[in-house]
């Protein structure tokens, strides 16, 4: 055992500095990302979402234009920058996607199951209305400073629970959100990882979702981001609109307060 320990001590000293972490590769990737900014296919989702918002749909054949996203019935501008938040009518903290489902049920008469049956679209045959609506509504907060409230006890509780969940390790690989997102300047492969425990890191990450993912050719929402993080954490499947999804969103959105919202974005 002693020998093993000794070797470990030696190993720790002998870590070779990484030369390729900066330099031409990082420069090249930065240029690639810059070149993508001019023309974001997320706009296609925004357009479809705006049409869906205004369209009379569902069993009751009404539009979502009277949906209260927190700033009053029908107010879209800036609404996303103040979500998640506590809603008295639902007696629950809700993120945007959960609130949209609520409005589809209460205003348009959909069943809850119908409203959330396709949260994450794939391809032409399975376009997600929720993603399109989210793209539109978030686009109406572009440039608005994040200002997630913490007035209600349930908002504070969601934040604390979210923080707790951020550090929860589990699964086959012992991964938590914190495994990848609690240190500065780290990467997975070439993908930069935001440090979500700092305001700066949370701001940079949270304000750039939803995003058009060029690797998938799809627009992805923040709920999807959480869903797919947990998949890669080797956890079971995160339920759409669940308490964990909302609490983590609350934790990160609130940490992002003060920064201008800047999405839908475009990412690798």
């Amino acid at each position, binding site marked *: 055992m002693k020998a093993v320990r000794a070797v470990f001590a030696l190993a720790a000293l002998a870590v070779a500095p990484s030369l390729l972490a900066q330099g031409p590769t990082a420069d090249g990737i930065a240029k690639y990302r810059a070149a993508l900014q*001019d*023309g*974001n*296919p997320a*706009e*296609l989702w925004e*357009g*479809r979402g705006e049409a869906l918002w205004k369209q009379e749909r569902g069993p009751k054949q009404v539009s979502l234009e009277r949906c209260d996203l927190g700033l009053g019935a029908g107010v879209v501008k800036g609404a996303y920058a103040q979500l998640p938040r506590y809603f008295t009518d639902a007696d629950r903290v809700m993120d945007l996607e959960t609130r949209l489902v609520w409005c589809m049920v209460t205003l348009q008469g959909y069943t809850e199951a119908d409203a959330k049956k396709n949260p994450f679209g794939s*391809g*032409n045959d399975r376009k997600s209305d929720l993603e399109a609506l989210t793209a539109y509504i978030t686009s109406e907060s572009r440039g608005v400073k994040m200002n997630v409230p913490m007035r209600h006890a349930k908002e504070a509780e969601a934040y604390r629970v979210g923080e707790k969940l951020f550090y929860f390790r589990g699964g086959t690989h012992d991964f938590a959100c914190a495994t990848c997102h609690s240190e500065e300047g780290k990467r997975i492969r070439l993908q930069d990882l935001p440090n979500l425990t700092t305001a700066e890191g949370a701001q940079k990450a949270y304000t750039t979702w939803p995003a*058009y993912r*060029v690797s998938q*050719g799809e627009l992805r929402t923040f709920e999807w981001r959480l869903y797919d993080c947990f998949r890669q954490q080797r956890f079971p499947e995160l339920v759409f609109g669940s308490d964990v999804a909302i609490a983590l969103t609350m934790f990160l959105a609130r940490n992002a307060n003060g920064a201008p919202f800047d999405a839908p974005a475009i990412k690798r």
Partner: protein
Amino acid sequence: MADPMRIRAATLGDSTEVKVLMSHEMETGQRKDAQGQTIPAWFIQNVIVTWNGRTVLSAQWGTAVSKNPFLSFKFKGGAKGDKIAISWMDNRGDKRTDETVIA
């Protein structure tokens, strides 16, 4: 039915810049689905951009153009309020035309 294109056209000095995003799968025909079946190629083959009815760009595309294609170019002579129309047709014969006016 494909979603509408998002077209931007704006004059900058004597030239007009046109930028367009199209909603299309641009399936290569090389991929397989979960059951191991090849997903057939499905892609835009032709694009024509007209300015007040006159062709200012035409293109032929193969399967290597990215999903949800983006295209940008400039032409001379456009003025605010002129009509820009963009049409595409894919290998299934689906087509779509959208219009905008130069801003």
